[in-house]
């Protein structure tokens, strides 16, 4: 079927998450015509808040966000999975979740807005591990700041608390005051260990900002901030639309068309939910469809001209899959009541293991003391122990006020064998293959996780903890990256330092899929900064052409 519409724009963007919507906003404000094709539906916050309240399994971050038949996303982190099929020695460690809907996966992020460290971009040069990026920290610094202003990031004054990523400007908002529980944790770490607890930079309002209110501490950043005090990609969608960008929901791109020389992309094709096919032409194209869907789209667009998929002359599309694999433990503190869960979810971090000479041997990591409301967990635990009546109520109070959860982000390395391919056995309602991922944890990451376990045991001891419950094995942190890796050499990488594909001069990728290494901080701010740099490149080329 062909379309009766003639969809065309200067820039066509696939994906409306943080990356796609922020590029759309920048370009539209500069007077450039933009079409954004989003596979999933247009959605609203209150609907998800209601879904959350009616959800039995409250910790399920995907639970309030059911997918549509035409834009399926993983329903949970279970292996086997209904959509993301993982295999290999550490299949469970790559069971990522994400959302396919207008605004993208930041509907359920915790707002952690880390800049990477300068060393994260030069892992090979400094420590002989992994790769170097095809850009330096200083190249990205202005765009980090632009991303922080766009999202509304609060963070500490570097003169008081230096997070290791040099800043030309202060954070747009003052740091979030940490909870009583986090204060006590920081006091313990400061007094009893050589380490420190820092304020986590967060895309969360400590004052009214960008038409959104100050955080009220609903403790529900994941899966859904009920008042919009936390940034999500939906706000960039609103701004971009107000500036004139056109967003098309339920538009599942399935093919990238090139010219006869295979040098330039000429159009993308999408299915509507009824599988009507539409062609959208443009001068430039940006794939901003999340690490997994971006690689999937490039592979699924394979044809006689490009039998291995688009932008894949290197053979590296879908390879080098990385994540922040996590170690997690929950225990009951023997010290005074903390009552975690008053305030936002993730506010404080032990950052001593983000960088060091030991990175030649084992991966870096950071540690969150999660400020999560434990009342429901405490209730389930106390009931399972056999308490009833007044004794149950006493237990609920005690466990809810003394439960502590620690988890880490441990650094992966790019390994070409960790690979996304198209499923040969599973297809969605439109006939598009599901993604398969083979995953084996790099030894570098395993050693990092071992170190983390040792630290956690020490901390449990310091807090006189009991009833340790270790999350089995390694668990995914939903920070997939690397599937269209950045590099200077077109033979072993997919995009250059400006996120332009080596193979197609007018095709860019804006996603964590371009990361050459994954560092330790949450990936979203770096995704946004890279996207804004893509927007800057496009503006220069289109406006000065």
């Amino acid at each position, binding site marked *: 079927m062909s379309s009766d519409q003639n969809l065309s724009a200067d820039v066509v963007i696939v994906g409306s998450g943080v990356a796609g919507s922020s590029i759309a906003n920048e370009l539209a404000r500069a007077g450039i015509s933009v079409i954004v094709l989003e596979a999933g539906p247009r959605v609203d916050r209150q609907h998800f808040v209601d879904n959350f309240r009616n959800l*039995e399994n409250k910790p399920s971050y995907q639970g309030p966000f059911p997918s549509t038949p035409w834009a399926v996303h993983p329903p949970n982190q279970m292996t086997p999975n209904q959509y993301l099929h993982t295999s290999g020695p550490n299949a469970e460690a790559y069971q990522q979740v994400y959302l396919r809907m207008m605004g993208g996966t930041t509907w359920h992020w915790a707002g952690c807005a880390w800049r990477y460290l300068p060393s994260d971009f030069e892992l090979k040069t400094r420590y002989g591990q992994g790769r170097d990026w095809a850009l330096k920290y200083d190249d990205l610094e202005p765009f980090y700041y632009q991303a922080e202003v766009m999202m509304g990031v609060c963070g500490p004054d570097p003169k008081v608390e230096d997070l290791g990523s040099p800043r030309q400007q202060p954070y747009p908002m003052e740091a979030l005051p940490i909870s009583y529980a986090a204060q006590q944790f920081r006091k313990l770490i400061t007094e009893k260990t050589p380490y420190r607890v820092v304020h986590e930079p967060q895309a969360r309002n400590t004052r009214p900002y960008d038409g959104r209110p100050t955080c009220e501490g*609903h403790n529900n950043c994941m899966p859904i901030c009920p008042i919009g005090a936390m940034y999500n990609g939906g706000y960039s969608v609103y701004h971009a639309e107000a500036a004139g960008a056109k967003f098309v929901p339920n538009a599942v791109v399935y093919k990238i068309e090139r010219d006869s020389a295979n040098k330039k992309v000429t159009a993308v094709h999408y299915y509507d939910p009824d599988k009507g096919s539409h062609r959208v032409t443009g001068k430039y194209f940006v794939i901003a469809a999340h690490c997994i869907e971006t690689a999937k789209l490039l592979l699924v667009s394979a044809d006689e001209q490009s039998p291995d998929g688009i932008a894949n002359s290197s053979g590296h599309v879908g390879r080098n899959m990385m994540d922040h694999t996590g170690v997690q433990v929950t225990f009951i503190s023997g010290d005074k009541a903390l009552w975690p*869960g008053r305030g936002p979810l993730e506010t404080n971090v032990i950052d001593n293991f983000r960088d060091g000479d030991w990175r030649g041997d084992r991966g870096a990591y950071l540690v969150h003391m999660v400020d999560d409301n434990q*009342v429901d967990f405490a209730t389930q635990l106390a009931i*399972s122990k056999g308490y*009833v009546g007044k004794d149950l109520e006493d237990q*609920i109070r005690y466990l809810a006020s003394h439960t502590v959860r620690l988890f880490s982000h441990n650094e992966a390395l790019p390994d070409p064998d960790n690979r996304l391919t198209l499923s040969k056995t599973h297809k969605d309602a439109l006939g598009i293959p599901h993604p398969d991922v083979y995953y084996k944890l790099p030894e570098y990451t395993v050693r990092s996780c071992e170190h983390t376990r040792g630290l956690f045991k020490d901390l449990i001891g310091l807090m006189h903890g009991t009833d340790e419950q270790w999350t089995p094995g390694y668990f995914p942190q939903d920070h997939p990256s690397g599937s269209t890796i950045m590099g200077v050499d077109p033979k072993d990488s997919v995009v250059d330092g400006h996120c332009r594909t080596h193979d197609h001069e007018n095709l860019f990728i804006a996603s964590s899929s371009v990361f050459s290494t994954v560092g330790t901080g949450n990936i979203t701010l770096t995704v946004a900064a890279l996207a804004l740099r893509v927007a800057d490149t496009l503006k220069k080329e289109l406006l000065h052409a």
Partner: protein
Amino acid sequence: MTKDRHCPLVDLHTSSPNAMRLNRLTRMSRRDTLMTGMAGVGVLAVGNVVAAEPATGAEPELERFMKVSTRLTDRACLDPRIGKALYERILQSGPELKAQLSKLATLLESGNYENASAFAKAAEQADPAFKDVIHDIMTGWYRGVADGKVVVYRSALMFDVTKDAIYPKTYAAGGPFYWTTQPPEVDKPTGAPALSPSKFDVEPT
């Protein structure tokens, strides 16, 4: 009388955090609230209340469920609207539940148990199957969940038990930065479990 054990019903609309804040903003005093309450429905109690529906004798099994529930929670009264919803949903979880709940009520009626623990112990001794039934009842009242479905969220008793310290997720009402203050201390409880332990599986995210 079972009737006596029913709480004065809180009007969930006027007692929501937003309404409470609005009340403060509009300077509605406790006296105003009382006056409204007295003039409106004639119930003498502090706070916003509405008239409880009289306990109906038309649903004797529900009344028996309420008696078992008040005993197992060690509470003087429970909200009959929530009780009705929980009872109906618990019945959905298996064909045997109706008879089991009835038998559990018979056990309660046959003895004089001084507290929830004593009753629960006796029940598990009488029939090991009662342990799961009691779990269902506890899960219903304290988590607000029955048959794997949310029956109530904010009104689940787990939040009543902890309301001096923490808000249910999405219902915070302390205003920005309330979380920096010190919450109440909690002493280690001395009570013992009444039932034998069960496996606790943390649900996947």
